[in-house]
């Protein structure tokens, strides 16, 4: 039994790590159609690449399987559904918009809305505190500049006076 498991492990290991020395090129398959499907799926062994970009042996086999499914007359959508039915939604690059997957989509939106609401609240509170007089255009005339003195300038002058 143990040797069986060992052999199986070895077999799987070699399977996953074998180089692409002799990928069986299938003459008249439309590889772009295969990639169009594969791009929407995850590489089953490594997580961050999509199936179209991954060059491991396993991914080559999956792509060949996609080619076969397409050749059997299935549409791209049907092929994707076929994989989802077998392996679950984990095979898809894009997280599902229902069930647990919904949260990944919805929370950024909620977060943004909460942030925007908070910002609106702060802006409103701050600007509501303004005294009436402050609504003078500072760039209108030299007189206006006097009614709304430049804080930074005053601060600088005060500081320099202290420094003297």
């Amino acid at each position, binding site marked *: 039994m143990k040797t069986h498991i060992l052999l199986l492990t070895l077999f799987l290991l070699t399977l996953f790590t074998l180089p692409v020395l002799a990928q069986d090129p299938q003459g008249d398959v439309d590889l772009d159609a295969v990639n169009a499907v594969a791009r929407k799926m995850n590489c089953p062994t490594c*997580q961050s690449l999509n199936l179209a970009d991954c060059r491991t042996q396993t991914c080559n086999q999956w792509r060949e399987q996609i080619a076969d499914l397409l050749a059997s007359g299935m549409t791209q959508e049907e092929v994707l559904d076929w994989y989802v039915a077998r392996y679950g939604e984990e095979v898809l690059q894009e997280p599902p918009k229902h069930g647990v997957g919904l949260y*990944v989509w919805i929370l950024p939106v909620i977060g943004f809305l909460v942030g925007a609401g908070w910002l609106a609240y702060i802006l409103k509170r701050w600007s509501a505190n303004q005294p009436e007089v402050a609504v003078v*255009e500072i760039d209108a005339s030299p007189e206006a500049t006097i009614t709304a003195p430049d804080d930074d300038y005053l601060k600088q002058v005060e500081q320099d*006076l202290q420094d003297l």
Partner: protein
Amino acid sequence: MPAIGYTAQVLAFILTLYAIVVSAAGAKKNRQDLVMSARNASLGATIFLAIAVLVLEYLLIIGHYQTEYVADVTNNVTALFYRMTALWASQNGSLLFFAFIMSIFTGAAILRKWGAVQNLLPYVMAVLNLVLVFFIGLVVTVANPFAQLPFFPPDGQGMNPMLYHWGMIIHPPILYIGFAGFIVPYAFSMAALITRQRGDLWMRTSRRWTLIAWLFLGMGLLLGGRWAYDVLGWGGYWGWDAVENAALIPWLVATPFIHSVIMQESRGMMKRWNVALMILTFSLVIEGTFLTRSGVIGSVHTFAQSAIGPLFLGFIGIMFILSLALFVLRWDDLSSDNELDSLLSRESAFLLANLLFIALAFTVWWGTHFPIISEAITGEKIVVGPPFFMKTTGPLFAALVLLMGIAPLMPWRRITSRKLLYTLRWPALVGALTAAGLYFFTWIKLPGALMTFAFLAFTMTTTLLEYGRGINARRRAHDENALTATLRLTARNRRRYGGYLVHIGVVLLAIGIVGMEFYQVETQQNIDRGETMIVSSPVAGTYELTYQDLGMAPSQPGIEITQATLTVSRNGQVVGEVKPYQEFFIRQQQPMTIPDIHRDFMSELYVIIAGWEADGSSATFKAYINPFINWLWLGGLVLIFGTLVAVWPGPEPARRRSRAKSKTGVVTA
């Protein structure tokens, strides 16, 4: 020899602990001698870490395979250069290297002229060493790079094949500098909170450090992108991989920080917000190191799986909670000096930018962590791939680009909507004309692309107008020619005009991103020797690739290279050859598909070999046409240059003082 390295680490650890305790005691009892003692201990720690790094380098170079780390990352055929860079090729070495870089920052910060902020020194020192001691603690205990094997293996494993590239060699150190650099502004912010500093002194003092860290973080991201493009062979520059995101998220928080710092300096506002952003940035930096190093999220980069995860998580938790507690305790000290004068003002534009950046950071953080979170809570691991990130961040990035064009034209305090619209009339016109011109005269027709290009043209116009206004003013006042005026204007106000250069860099970079995201074309075909495959795109026309030959190419020992030769014709004319190849790393049994690129400024033809018949009679190629990709790299260079302009120490303070003096003179007269 390994014993020396390990001893040096231990000594650095002890000195760092000593520095924490003694600087805290010195601060409490207000004793300068204790502070000086802590200072020397802290500098000593830097020196001992340098010794540890040198010893590890030595072991790597001589191939001391009894040292486990050396055996893991090098072997007998590893070239000298890669032996040296193997210091950061795997976990334990890179943690030591990271601690060393961090200690250089602590050392440099301690050695600066303290002058007016002398009272902050012991606190800054305590915080710096508190963070540092954690990383040294890791390499002393669970991640010791000097751990020995019970026997002396004749050969080692060798480095991860993906790391054999110049981008991968300099990308980690640069990213580490970016990450580690934020320790200085963080320590200053904490010291200011502890000592109840109300002003913006901590920010002004650490401003240059922040910008340098920000610059290196940005360069690290760019280099990572370039490496992915040149080596990984999937035709892109950014894969929304967890480790890439781990570096992007702190950048997305540090960027609004370096902006709203200006608001605190000019208007005395956003004090709480800025402290919060700094705490968040640094926590995310440490969390980024955690994500990269703990192997918690499987990804192409994460070649590290070990027990340091829980330690890291504990440290992040403690650091974050302590910082937050201090922040809340000092809440009332950080009240704003000024209120908002108007909803239409530069202040409100800055606030909006903050919202967009934080929303971006949160979205990327959430998407990156969702697989672990969903697995922990529901047991179901949901994969969050690039489509999620593109759909959610795209609109936010576009909005930021637009805001980048409006904000510089908004004055502080208030502007009327009539005046704002008047100011924006030219940029808006240029933006609209750009979209119309592209639509009617070029192949760019997609609404998303047209809109983004209009935004970019708008922002570019605003930024150039800002430059133009300054230059004209100088030319009138000083009778200078345009070039002198430009140079002097920038030199006299480096921060502002350096900042605008960065904005121009971002616009150029975004042109590349829009081109790639909307108009990249790819095809994969299996062709016989002598046959031709076609790939075409409106930006480049039609390329014909004719498969000529397949053969082995000379290479370094331990790597087998199979290379194909294809002739490239563009619109019927032969323009060159491409030779994509596959490297096969014999020892690791791992293939790497390296693209060959036919370069042209406006677009690049990117070809990889995806498979072949053993006799070479036929082979499969994947060809991409990448529009505007070079704008991305160019924009990156402009961004770096602009940041350097802003960071470069200039005559500004002296000039400001003299101007202020003369003003004072007028007042007193």
